[in-house]
C-alpha cells in the first residue's frame, strides 16, 4: 500500500471536526401526532438519540411526522432508523410521514427498497410518487404542522420530549 499515513485521524478535512458536524435529533409531542426533527449529519454519532426518538414514537402510538428537510448527511444507521420506525408504525396501523424535500433521504430509501413504507409531504422532487397523500393525512398535517423552520425559540420546554446532542 502506498501513500504516507498521517497521524490518527485526518488529512483533507480542513476546518471541520467530526463533532462540528454531528446532527440533532429532537422529538416533540404535538396535538395528535409525534414530530421528529432531524438536522445535520444523521449518522452513527446520534445512534442513542435515534433510538430514543424511535421508541418514543412507537410507544406514543400516534401518527408520526419526521422532518428531514435539514438533513445534511445520513448513513446506514440513520436510514435503518427511518426504515425500522416506518415498519414499526405500519405494524400498529400508522404511517411514517416525511416532511421534505430531501433528495438524499428519498433516493436512499428508494435504493434500499423501502420507499413504499413512507409518505412524503412537500415531496422530494426526485421521487414524487411517494408523496401521494391521503386526504385526511394531508388535512391533519396542514392543520397541526405548519412551518417548523427549526426556530427552537418557538418550542416550549414542556413540548420537548427528547433532544439530541
Amino acid at each position, binding site marked *: 500500500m502506498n501513500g504516507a499515513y498521517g497521524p490518527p485521524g485526518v488529512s483533507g*478535512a480542513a476546518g471541520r471536526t467530526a463533532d462540528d458536524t454531528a446532527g440533532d435529533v429532537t422529538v416533540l409531542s404535538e396535538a395528535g401526532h409525534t414530530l421528529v426533527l432531524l438536522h445535520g449529519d444523521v449518522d452513527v454519532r446520534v445512534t442513542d438519540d435515534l433510538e430514543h426518538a424511535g421508541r418514543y414514537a412507537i410507544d406514543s402510538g400516534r401518527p408520526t411526522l419526521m422532518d428531514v428537510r435539514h438533513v445534511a448527511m445520513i*448513513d446506514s444507521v440513520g436510514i435503518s432508523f427511518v426504515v425500522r420506525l416506518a415498519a*414499526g408504525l405500519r405494524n400498529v396501523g400508522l404511517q411514517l410521514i416525511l416532511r421534505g424535500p430531501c433528495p438524499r433521504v428519498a433516493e436512499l430509501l428508494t435504493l434500499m427498497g423501502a420507499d413504499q413504507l413512507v409518505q412524503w409531504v412537500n415531496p422530494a422532487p426526485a*421521487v414524487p410518487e411517494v408523496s401521494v397523500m391521503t386526504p385526511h393525512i394531508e388535512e391533519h398535517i396542514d392543520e397541526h404542522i405548519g412551518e417548523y423552520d427549526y426556530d427552537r425559540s418557538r418550542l416550549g420546554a414542556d413540548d420537548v420530549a427528547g433532544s439530541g446532542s
Partner: protein
Amino acid sequence: MLADDALARGPAAGRWAVQQAWEVTAVADAVRVRAAISEMVAATTAAPDGLFFAAAGARAETAAGELLLNAVHHGAAPVRATLSRGEAAWLIEVTDAAADHRPTVPAVPTGPEGNLTTPGGLGLRLALRVSDSVGWYPTEGGKTVWARVGDRAPARLTELLTHQNG
C-alpha cells in the same frame, strides 16, 4: 435482493494510483475521512444535474462512510483507508486486522423487532447500492474491503431512481 455473493472476491481490477491514505482509530476519524474523501472526489469529478447520487462525491461519501464504520465497529485495529484514482473511477479501500470476520450483507430490516438502530447493519448493502462494485480479500493478518465508485453513476442506480421518478 442482494446476497453475500454480491461482494466480489479479490482485489479490484484495474490500475489504481493512491491519492491519499489515512489511519482510522475511532468513529470520529471515520467521519472525518468520509468527509475528506467526499471533498476530494467532488472537487475533481463533475456533478451532473438531477439525481443526488448521480454525483460521484455523494456516492463516494456514502460508500467510504459505510466501509469505514464497518471496520471501526466490526474489524480490528489498525484500520487504514486509501483513496485511489483509476480509469474514470475511484477506489476506496479499508483494511483492518480482523481476518476472521467475513463481510456480510444483511437483509433490509422491515420489522419493529430489535433495536431501531443497528450501527453498520446495512452498511455493506448501502455501499453496494451506490458503488459500481464492492469486494474484499484477505491480507496478511487481516482483510481489505473495497468499493469502486465510478465518475458516472452505475446504470442500475440511475434506472432504479429514474423509474421511481416516473
